[in-house]
């Protein structure tokens, strides 16, 4: 169920965009999204590598306290790392997009869409950290519920923005959704850690 919701949350926007704005708009968004996805490998790989250690800590007698401390200490570092990655990607977007897709094929809208989407990377670092912490604490259902909520909000907002703002609107909604998911998972992880420590 979680994987279906995760795919739906991340990809339904392309389906809606294609249906309402056509192939070219979906292509512009898709080009930006695919490059964002490649940049997003950095947080995903880093957090995947941390996950087994988080699982081990959660099983130890006083591990929950340590896990809480790690989440609190690593969070700001990941935020700074994510912001740096976003700044670099925003600056390089004008060069990177034509280099990957060809100068003739890249429109200004695709570059702008990429510049907007890369600001979701700091949120991705943080929501993966909190999501992994919840998984380690055995609260998978909370993650699924949060993703379902954000997925619904994402679809609702896309329905409102796509007709008027096309790929740029979808990118802004994707950015908002990423930060909303972080806010929800961060609150849930904080609550789960407090409960475990009591």
């Amino acid at each position: 169920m979680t994987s279906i919701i995760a795919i739906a949350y991340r990809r339904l926007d392309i389906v809606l965009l294609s249906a309402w704005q056509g192939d070219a708009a979906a292509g512009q968004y898709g080009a930006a999204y695919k490059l964002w996805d490649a940049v997003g490998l950095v947080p995903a790989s880093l957090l995947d590598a941390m996950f087994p250690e988080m699982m081990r800590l959660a099983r130890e007698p006083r591990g929950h306290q340590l896990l809480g401390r790690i989440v609190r200490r690593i969070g700001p570092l990941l935020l700074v790392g994510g912001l740096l990655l976003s700044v670099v990607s925003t600056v390089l977007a004008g060069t990177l997009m034509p280099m990957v897709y060809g100068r003739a094929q890249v429109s200004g809208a695709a570059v702008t869409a990429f510049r907007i989407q890369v600001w979701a990377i700091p949120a991705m670092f943080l929501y993966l950290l909190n999501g992994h912490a919840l998984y380690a604490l055995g609260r998978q259902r909370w993650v699924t519920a949060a993703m379902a909520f954000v997925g619904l909000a994402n679809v609702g907002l896309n329905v409102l923005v796509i007709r008027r703002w096309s790929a740029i609107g979808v990118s802004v909604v994707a950015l908002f959704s990423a930060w909303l998911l972080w806010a929800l998972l961060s609150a849930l992880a904080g609550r789960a850690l407090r409960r475990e420590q009591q």
Partner: protein
Amino acid sequence: MNQAVGSQRATLRVGRNAAARLSAQVGTKLLSLLLVALVTRYEGSAGLGRYVLITTIVGLTAAVSDLGLGTFLTREVARERSATGRRLLLGHLLPLRMASAALGTGLLLVLTWVPIFPGGIRRLFSLGALYLLPNAAMAILGSFVTGRQRMDITSFIDVIARMLTLAGAVPALAAGLGVFGVLACTAAADGVGSSSTVPSSVAGNCCLACVLLRPNGPASCRMHTPSP
């Protein structure tokens, strides 16, 4: 002594699996980006839009038609000690997974008649629908092999399948076959991947058993190979 050796092997296995998974993720994402870049260069933004839409819908249908069978098979195969038991599990779940994929294919084929998307896209849906079958076979066999803790093999096959897709997509795009050609290459590559998953796993396990069971490791494997 045996416990220490067992723990060392488990650590080695976990490390090898994690490294394989991570490098395969990086490899497949980069190959996928390369493919998308090629589609854009040959077919423009509109072509990329069609390609991304079809792969998204096929991905969503694949996730739904999986019904959690992949995760279930991985978990049960990992728990099952006997080879017969594992074979039985695969024997029961493979037809079930293929049936659910066939249902997904049917649903996508029905979608080709719904006038939500333009005609060109609807024709591509038919091919995307057929692509679900090799994709499902590769996924369920991959879950079986993952359950046997051979993520290195599934990761390797994933990367090879994406490389095959790319190798086929370049001439297909150059020949003017467009997104249709790329989707056909993806389906063919997954077909090759699924048909090589289990034989590779068996061969890989033989090699691993050889490395682990011989007292001197890989060197003694070479010593036992019959010389001409």
